């Protein structure tokens, strides 16, 4: 079976004046469709950098990332990046980053609307996914009117609403208390299983890592 994600010989380094820090040193791995993968490792190991490269938020120095038939290399164009982000990946960050002027429903509609899906259709899909993450009663609330845990679940709904090939989550429970953390993991696991989502999550949290079907350890820029 063709893997959904294939990472080959991925290198990434950052420059600060004369100093060059090599963060990723030739990483290769694959992820199959419907897999839930947790990437763990100490701080500074390059977990977030890897996730940013997988989501085309950053460009690799060398190596390739292949996601559902689209390839990311150092030569990828701006237009290809826009289309890739729009159609192939959904992001969940440590902070929810919901747009403050928009209701929860409107926030979740955004990924569909930018794909050109008409408002009514996008609204129905967004309402459905919000119901599934337990926010059916918060549709018309502004982000400032809901709790941190609810905001993070809304951010998760925003990431999955367009049914992307790959969902990337960077420390999604990092800012949540234990109760909200448990609730988030429960929702994530349930949706991943029901919809066979392909999820890659970077986390320090054992509880979240244990919910994953596979765990990768990143140390010193290499997978261990």
């Amino acid at each position, binding site marked *: 079976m063709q893997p959904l994600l294939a990472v080959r010989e991925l290198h990434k380094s950052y420059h600060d004046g004369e100093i060059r820090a090599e963060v990723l040193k030739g990483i290769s791995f694959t992820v199959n469709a419907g897999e839930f993968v947790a990437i763990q490792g100490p701080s500074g190991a390059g977990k977030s950098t890897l996730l*940013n490269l997988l*989501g085309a*938020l*950053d460009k690799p120095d060398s190596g390739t990332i292949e996601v559902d038939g689209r390839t990311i290399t150092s030569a990828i164009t*701006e*237009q290809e990046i*826009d*289309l890739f*982000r*729009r*159609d192939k990946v959904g*992001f969940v*960050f*440590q*902070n929810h*980053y919901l*747009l*403050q*002027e*928009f209701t929860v429903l409107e926030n979740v509609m*955004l*990924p569909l*609307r*930018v*794909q*050109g*899906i*008409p*408002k009514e259709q996008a609204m129905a899909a967004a309402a459905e996914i919000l119901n599934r993450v337990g926010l059916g009663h918060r549709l018309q609330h502004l982000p400032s009117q809901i709790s941190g845990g609810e905001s993070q679940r809304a951010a998760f709904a*925003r990431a999955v609403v367009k049914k992307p090939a790959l969902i990337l989550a960077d420390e999604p429970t990092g800012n949540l208390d234990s109760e909200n953390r448990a609730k988030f993991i429960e929702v994530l696991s349930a949706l991943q299983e029901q919809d066979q989502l392909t999820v890659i999550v970077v986390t320090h949290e054992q509880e979240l890592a244990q919910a994953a079907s596979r765990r990768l350890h990143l140390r010193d820029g290499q997978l261990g």
Partner: protein
Amino acid sequence: MRLSKESLERLKLSLAISYRYARGKSRYFLSLNAFLAFFGVFIGTSLLVVVMSVFGGFQTQLKKSIFQFDPHIMLTIDRITGSEKITGWPKWKELIRAGLGDDCEAVEGSIQSPAILRRRKYLDHVFVRGIDFPTSDGKNYTLPDYFPEIVEPAGSRTIPQGDFAIVGREMALSLGLSIGDSIELIVPRGQFSLTTGVTPSIRSFKIAAFFKTGHYNYDSKVVVLSLKTTQELYALPDAVQQIVVRLKDPDQLAQVKRKVAKIWPATIRTIEDEQRNFFAALRLEKTIMMVIVFLFIIAAMVGIVIATFNMVRAHRRDIGILKALGFTRQHILLIFAVTGFAMGVLGSVLGIFAGVGLANNLENVLHAIESTINFFGRLYAEHGQAYWADVRLIPRDVYYFDHLPIDIDWRLLRVLGIVSVILSILAAGIPARKASRFEPIDIIRKAEF
């Protein structure tokens, strides 16, 4: 170019986001930030229109008073003094009239010369202007249409033939003249000669009417006589000192002067040559006003730049997220530029209309303000047992204009509109372009730490 259904949806989304950012958390139509940007441009543009209209009105009125009273083109023989007599002038008059055709309103012989006016013990230097008035009944002269307004006898357009003079209203006021009063004019008789010098001629005239041009120099210094009387006074029988041409359209001065030059062999001077400094000053004023106009708009547009920068700064994190969701640079540019652009264009267009409305009613507005001030002033004076002198925002006794002259230059307003649109694009576009170039990774990294 036709937009696909998806592109149209994305465009609608970008505009919706833009409007939401412009409204912010305000319950009203616009956020305070966006409203202030709009208001700055609106007020700036409308005041500008009012100032330019009043300023233009003054210039037009001033020009009109000069063009109304002075001949537009003067043909003389003597290049230096213009006092050489022209005999056979009716022949030249016909030639010139035929050569100019529809361009000219009138071609006439004229005498214009300095004189001393005596009224009892009072002496003053004045200019005598002899005009070839037409006569219909052989007893009275009819004043031509271009001749300034007669203020006394009000509306009269005839004067009796003979030794009658028309003087300006200001001269009448300063000398205490009434209709029917006598003045004496002392002038050099005939032509100056080195051997005999000049013989003075003294003659008495009755005041037939008072005219008003609205130009102080004319209204206080010019005595108008019929050409025939002037010829007798100056001992220039059947001769004139100059042939004067009045144009239907004074803006055609240069073209008509070229036509006249093909007919008239001697000196040709135009009103612009005569009043060179005055017209140069008007042109300079206009240029300076245009520069001020430009600076005014620039200042108003700085408000748009600041508002757009504020909006971008307040939504930096959103830009990162929107880009992570697949919004392109063009979408981000549109989201942030459209609000500033709309504020600039809307502010300018509404400002222009408001300015035109205010300019057209400025006199009423000023009178209303004046009445309000005076009402409260009198009320205060009554209660405080004090004296209140009424305030006059438009003094009715100011000489030049008896009403506030307004001239709305639509061509200038069109330029103002176009410049505002261009500046609005730049003012909103520059910060929006910066926003569109933000990299989501930079924003998210900064926000995470």
